[in-house]
């Protein structure tokens, strides 16, 4: 037997433990009571009108956010991939920025922009038109959908743009030669080719919207409605109803699993036969007089996702009263002083966040690389199952994972609650799908021949991995590291149930500040978080030498 076998088995077991333990406990708790097995919690979940309403709200939010993401993301993907739109690089860069912006920061910024009375855009609208009613009330379901879509549409964009980048223009040109008009070409040739990508993007966006905690907590609660995630969080109030929270988690979990299953079924074997080929040329469609209007449209979207929110955050960070005009009198650095020096939780939280980010990214990138390697080289039996398990957490919303981890690790033998370890386990599990798919792509690109040569010359598998594969996979692994790090520093939905006062992280501190309404301090910390994120993005682009959304220059 080869020496490396224990390593593979250990990696596989770690993964299984990470996912199965919390889910097992979740299922167990959801049916347990003092008198043994019971379905009472489920009965309550499905009969309590308040909980039913939360279920319904979540459904409405997720589907509309998915559709809105599609409506924004798909045209932008087509424009930036297949047309002579000016400023494509800029647009892609901005979409990447919205991709890495924590959604809860966006939601928070939009409270200042479109709160019905104090919101700056509404004030502007009133002073211009003399109207009484606001232009836009962000504390409503449509407002919530709008803000959520601003930060989920990049998922649709990435899926479609990457596919469009790979489709050669041959088919489209053939159709055009045969007399089809532009619209007809688009509808009969291009659309069917990208249909799988559109569907995948849509489902990804819906998954994201279902799992969000911060945006509904900031926008839905003030309006007096719950989504599943905020409801689960509310169930943890003293006296905690963990069984109810668990029972309420299961429908959310089933919904996300069902969505992914649907995606698989719908796509079926309809592969990407014409996609993925190199060769064929891609000619861009001339937009003619529509070039600049199209650019303007894209910039308008980015204004909503990036310019306006970042602008208002900067303003809030520098002013005494965010709703007042930016005069000398209103200008202050006090928010910075308060956030970093007077508020005693900040520094510890930044350190905790960095520590967790680095730790999770290192272990996560390593584990993901090992797993992807096992699956790609088919090293152990059941490697497909491994790939499945590694991708499975994508259907586990953060709050649900947190409920499972809370139950699993607040009792012996593994008492992790109250330490950074429980957050580490949560982040590692949550980031595994991202890490795995990144690593998988990396190892697919490295042919096994080189390794085989090494093996023939007598090196063991581990040595080959260390001396041949790893150097080749280096930049891919670094990219994985960066993705995980970015994911960790913005994580809120699992952290909010798992932190204790001594293990606060930045996102939780921001959330705490929000409940007392410290807009200035939140803006300062939010901008700090963004700065950290962009530093990592720049680092990654330098290492990869390309745009990290996968666009080829």
């Amino acid at each position, binding site marked *: 037997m080869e020496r490396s076998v224990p390593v593979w088995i250990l990696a596989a077991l770690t993964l299984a433990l990470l996912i199965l333990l919390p889910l097992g406990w979740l299922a167990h708790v959801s049916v347990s009571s003092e008198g043994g097995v019971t379905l009472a919690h489920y009965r309550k979940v499905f009969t309590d009108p308040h909980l039913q309403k939360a279920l319904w709200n979540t459904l409405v939010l997720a589907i509309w956010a998915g559709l809105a993401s599609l409506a924004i993301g798909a045209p932008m993907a087509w424009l930036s991939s297949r047309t002579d739109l000016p400023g494509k690089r800029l647009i892609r860069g901005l979409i990447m920025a919205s991709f890495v912006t924590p959604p809860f920061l966006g939601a928070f910024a939009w409270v200042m922009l479109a709160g019905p009375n104090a919101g700056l855009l509404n004030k502007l609208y009133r002073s211009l038109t003399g109207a009484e009613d606001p232009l836009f009330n962000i504390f409503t379901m449509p407002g919530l959908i709008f803000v959520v879509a601003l930060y989920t549409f990049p998922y649709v964009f990435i899926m479609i743009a990457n596919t469009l980048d790979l489709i050669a223009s041959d088919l489209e040109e053939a159709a055009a030669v045969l007399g089809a008009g532009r619209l007809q070409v688009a509808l009969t040739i291009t659309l069917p080719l990208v249909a799988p990508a559109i569907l995948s993007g849509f489902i990804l966006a819906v998954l994201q919207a279902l799992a969000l905690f911060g945006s509904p907590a900031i926008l839905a609660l003030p309006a007096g409605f719950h989504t599943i995630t905020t409801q689960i969080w509310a169930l943890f109030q003293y006296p905690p109803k963990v069984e109810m929270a668990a029972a309420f988690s299961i429908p959310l979990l089933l919904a996300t699993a069902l969505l992914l299953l649907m995606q698989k079924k719908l796509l079926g074997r309809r592969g990407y036969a014409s996609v993925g080929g190199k060769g064929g040329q891609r000619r861009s469609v001339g937009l003619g007089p529509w070039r600049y209007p199209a650019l303007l449209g894209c910039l308008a979207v980015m204004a909503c996702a990036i310019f306006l929110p970042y602008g208002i955050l900067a303003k809030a960070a520098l002013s005494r009263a965010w709703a007042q005009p930016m005069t000398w009198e209103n200008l202050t650095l006090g928010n910075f002083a308060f956030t970093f020096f007077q508020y005693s939780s900040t520094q510890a939280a930044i350190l905790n966040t960095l520590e967790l980010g680095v730790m999770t990214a290192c272990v996560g990138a390593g584990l993901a690389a090992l797993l992807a390697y096992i699956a790609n080289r088919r090293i152990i039996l059941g490697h497909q199952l491994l790939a499945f398990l590694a991708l499975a957490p994508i259907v586990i919303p953060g709050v649900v994972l947190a409920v499972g981890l809370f139950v699993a690790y607040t009792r012996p033998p593994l008492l992790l609650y*109250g330490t950074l370890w429980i957050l580490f386990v949560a982040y590692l599990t949550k980031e595994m799908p991202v890490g795995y798919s990144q690593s998988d792509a990396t190892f697919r690109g490295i042919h096994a021949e080189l390794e085989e040569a090494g093996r023939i010359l007598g090196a063991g598998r581990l040595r080959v991995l260390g001396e041949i594969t790893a150097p080749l996979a280096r930049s891919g692994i670094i990219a994985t590291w960066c993705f995980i790090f970015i994911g960790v520093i913005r994580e809120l939905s699992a952290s909010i149930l798992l932190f204790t*006062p001594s293990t606060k992280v930045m996102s939780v501190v921001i959330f705490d500040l929000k409940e007392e*309404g410290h807009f200035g301090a939140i803006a300062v910390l939010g901008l700090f978080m963004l700065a950290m994120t962009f530093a990592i993005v720049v680092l990654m682009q330098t290492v990869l030498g390309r745009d990290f959304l996968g666009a080829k220059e």
Partner: protein
Amino acid sequence: MVTRWLLTIAIVVAWAVMPADRASAQDARLEAARKEGKVVWYTSLALRSAEKVAKMFEAAYPGIKVEVHRTGSQRVLQRLMQELQANIKNADVVHTSDAGHFVLLKEKKLLMQYTPAGVEKFPSGFKDRDGYYYGLRATLTVIAYNPKLVSPAEVPRTWKDLLDPKWKGKLVTAHPGYSGLIATHVLALVNLHGWDYFKQLAQNKLMLVQSAVDPAGVVASGERPVAVNGGDYTFYQSKKKGNPIEIVYPKEGVPLIVSPAAITSFAPHPNAAKLFTDFTFSKEVQQALADSEGLYTGHPEVKYPADKPKLNELKLLPADADELEKRNEEIKKRFVEFFGA
């Protein structure tokens, strides 16, 4: 004669020795507190005020740090209990605005019996009869409005004025599921006007925020012109900073909420905790709470700013800690039923 003479000596000696003894006991405790190095304070006092008290303590006792963990009263309790369930002993001193919490914590034997120095002079409403917890501060929950947005003729003067449909979409409330002040406030108003009052109030489509501190910000920014509740000190502080805020003390009565503080029975830094507790009940801190923070306190010698109303000029609505403890679930549940979340 001799006995008299002896007695005099005894008194003189006692007088000379006892303070020294007390002082050395203080020294020993200070030494022990220094060794512990810090005190962990779970508090619901508004963040800026809490940090100010912490800085005052750190200045008075260099070398002992105060770890401030500020959140809403209900969350303080939630975090404390959640930690204990996992056998984590982190909190030294607990301070919330829900007196019911202290009934519960005492019953569960989670509090240390400790009487802060000088607290015997406080009125009885500030003292637990068994000596486990004492009122650190008192807060009124009031109506507040933005004078730039509400004309003098329109200003709501009573709790019932807020039921007028003209306020639809213009009110903000904090949440009893987060804030102990608001939980107590809701109970006091339910006892005054019944649950029907809140049912009707909810018809005006209120904006829901969490902390009793937050309505001050919402009203100052103009997002909602009127707050139907909130801690008077947060409005007072915001007004002092120049924000457009005016406070109304409704005629039907104003809930006066005494927020207790106590040391936990499992305090990991017991000496620092005692030192800190004594300090927070000292005249120096109590006066600071009254001055810059705009709070009321139980300390009989504290002087209040001239622009705060005297408590004896107001009709006060008291709240009973035991009743609050018993009806906590009901308060949160019905509030959510009426207001949606």
